[in-house]
């Protein structure tokens, strides 16, 4: 595959691994923030290749994993209503809410559909004026431009039967929170490439300055990650705490300003609850008052009760990089992708599922 195989070349990988090993002189704890990066690390076994002084911990960057239970319950309740078509990205369908999930709603007759783009949901609304079409707008800064575009388009067309259930979260506030914990162990971060493609990386410059930790904006292919790790290790060994960009083929310092302009026409920053972490100030998006008519939460008035997470599930620690999936007593036994106790076991980007899929003890 052109433009992909170049980033999976085993020879170049070995050279980078050797370079990393030659650079490291003492132990460092690094975190890759994004679940897509976790998935690549596990799929290619990159952590096995690294020198023993380097410890990788996995960050909170899995949108499926951090979507609060209450919002999943809302989606489930809305999807079960007569006359509603709920459209979602595929991996949200299996996430357990407190009493059901979207797959079960579908099995029980609910109209739940998988889409690759929120614009598909707009098209469904256009073609089915007699149905209420709700898009489950989950994700980080990455999916926000497309989701805002869908709302903007629906507004322009006057589609009164379209709305979105918003659960957007933002990376930098979560990283700030992690860095502020007294028990934080992370000394360097691989910043999420896709998020930075939209947002640029000036926000990470503030974090690097405030906490004196290095960031490297990293891509998602094996060589991207190895190069990002090497750049981080160099900074750490040299005592630097800067933001560097490994993912130059997609990311600029300013990011995609056009996408952000549209995004902020539709969304505004708000406090958000993160599953497994809790409420983080100014860590998400909600619809601006001008677009409140497209807010599914207002349109359907679903009451959900606060639900407790399973006591045994250590998703909270895993999402904060305080524990590894294998530290969990339920891992691989009572908790599997088939019977997940917590969200990180559901999505392929969740750290627990990545470990389960690729890395049980052989």
């Amino acid at each position, binding site marked *: 595959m052109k433009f992909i195989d170049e980033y999976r070349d*085993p020879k170049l990988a070995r050279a980078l691994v050797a370079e990393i090993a030659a650079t490291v002189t003492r132990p460092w704890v690094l975190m890759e923030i994004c679940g897509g990066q976790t998935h690549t690390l596990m799929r290619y076994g990159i952590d096995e290749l690294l020198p023993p002084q380097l410890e990788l911990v996995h960050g909170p960057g899995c949108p499926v994993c951090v979507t609060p239970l209450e919002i999943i319950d809302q989606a489930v309740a809305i999807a079960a209503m007569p006359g509603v078509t709920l459209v979602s990205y595929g991996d949200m369908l299996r996430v357990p809410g407190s009493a059901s999930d979207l797959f079960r709603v579908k099995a029980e007759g609910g109209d739940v559909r*998988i889409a690759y783009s929120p614009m598909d949901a707009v098209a469904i609304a256009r073609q089915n004026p007699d149905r209420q079409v709700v898009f489950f707008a989950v994700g980080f800064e990455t999916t926000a431009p497309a989701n805002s575009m869908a709302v903007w388009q629906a507004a322009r067309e006057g589609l009164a039967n379209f709305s979105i259930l918003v659960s957007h979260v933002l990376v930098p506030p979560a990283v700030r929170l992690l860095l502020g914990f007294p028990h934080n162990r992370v000394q360097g971060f691989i910043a999420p490439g896709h998020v930075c493609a939209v947002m640029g990386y000036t926000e990470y410059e503030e974090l690097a300055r405030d906490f004196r930790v290095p960031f490297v904006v990293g891509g998602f292919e094996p060589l991207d990650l190895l190069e990002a790790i090497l750049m981080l290790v160099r900074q750490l060994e040299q005592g630097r705490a800067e933001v560097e960009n490994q993912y130059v083929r997609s990311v600029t310092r300013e990011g995609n300003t056009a996408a952000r302009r549209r995004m902020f026409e539709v969304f505004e920053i708000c406090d958000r609850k993160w599953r497994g972490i809790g409420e983080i100030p100014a860590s998400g998006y909600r619809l601006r008052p001008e677009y409140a008519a497209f807010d599914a939460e207002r349109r359907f008035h679903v009451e959900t009760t606060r639900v407790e997470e399973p006591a045994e599930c250590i998703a909270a620690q895993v999402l904060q990089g305080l524990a590894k999936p294998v530290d969990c007593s339920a891992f691989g036994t009572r908790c599997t992708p088939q019977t997940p106790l917590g969200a990180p076991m559901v999505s392929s980007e969740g750290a627990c599922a990545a470990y389960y899929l690729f890395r049980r003890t052989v």
Partner: protein
Amino acid sequence: MMTCPTPLPSKDRILLGHGSGGKLSADLLRDVFLPVFRSPVLGRLDDQAILQIGAERLAFTTDSFVVKPLFFRGGDIGSLAVHGTINDLAMGGAEPLYLSAAFILEEGLSMDVLARIAESMGKAAEAAGIEIVTGDTKVVEKGKGDGVFINTTGIGRVRPGIHLSAANARPGDMVLLSGYLGDHGITILSERQDIGFDAPIESDSAALHTLVRDMLAASPAIRCMRDPTRGGLSSAINEIAALAKVGVELNEPAIPVREVVRGACELLGFDPLYVANEGKLVAIVPPESAAAVLAAMRNHPLGRESAIIGTVTEKHPAMVTMKTAFGTTRIVDMLPGDQLPRIC
């Protein structure tokens, strides 16, 4: 103690995932059917039953076909229904003899569509040298079916000396694959209107019995074969590993996957190991026969890109692992249900 409110997976209702060929399908078989059907032949869990009837050993199998769209590049539900059942017979080492064809039609289906499907079935059967000798038709109300569902049942004859069963796999055996993975699944996905990407590729739907015949002629010692349909290569290999209580170690760089399929999988967040095939087989072959069988496969038009993709090992019984191009090892598990397109 589990204090979890999570109801997954569904024990009280059928989910789409129960038809995915993955873990949920296996659960259904184990929990619902095997305990009450209580057949030792069924309990072998091969793709077909091998029955001793008088002096003859007959292979007997059935399969139902539900596919959307009904017509796709490289085939249609009719040819698929013929090929699929022929292949299930062939995987038992049988030469296919007769097929049945049963149709569940949805009220309002265009007669022209049905005629095209029937014609395609006739052609596929003729090309494969097999006769459709009995059948049935039922019609369900509009909205209760997806146009056409087809069931085909087949019988075939197994020659003396041929004993293919998943349980036969032994440590040291080689794993052979007959060509590119994922063509069928990605074709179907790309032709579904609700997805909207277009991949220049066609289904690999094909009858594999002549390929199997040539392979068995090269070496009757072949242990077993599977066609990696729904659930893909991963499910087929995991089933073999579980039934034979052996481990399997795949070699990722050796597994043939077309550029366009890799690209589509990349885009969708899919793994080609889990994508369906309708004209491929995987064979477990003793090491001393591997070269001869591989040569026979590559000589056949349906096996040109055949490759040795792994070995059977006594390590990690019932588990499948894969050596990556980086020299690291990862697990290749069955999926709980269908692959889900990811968020970003």
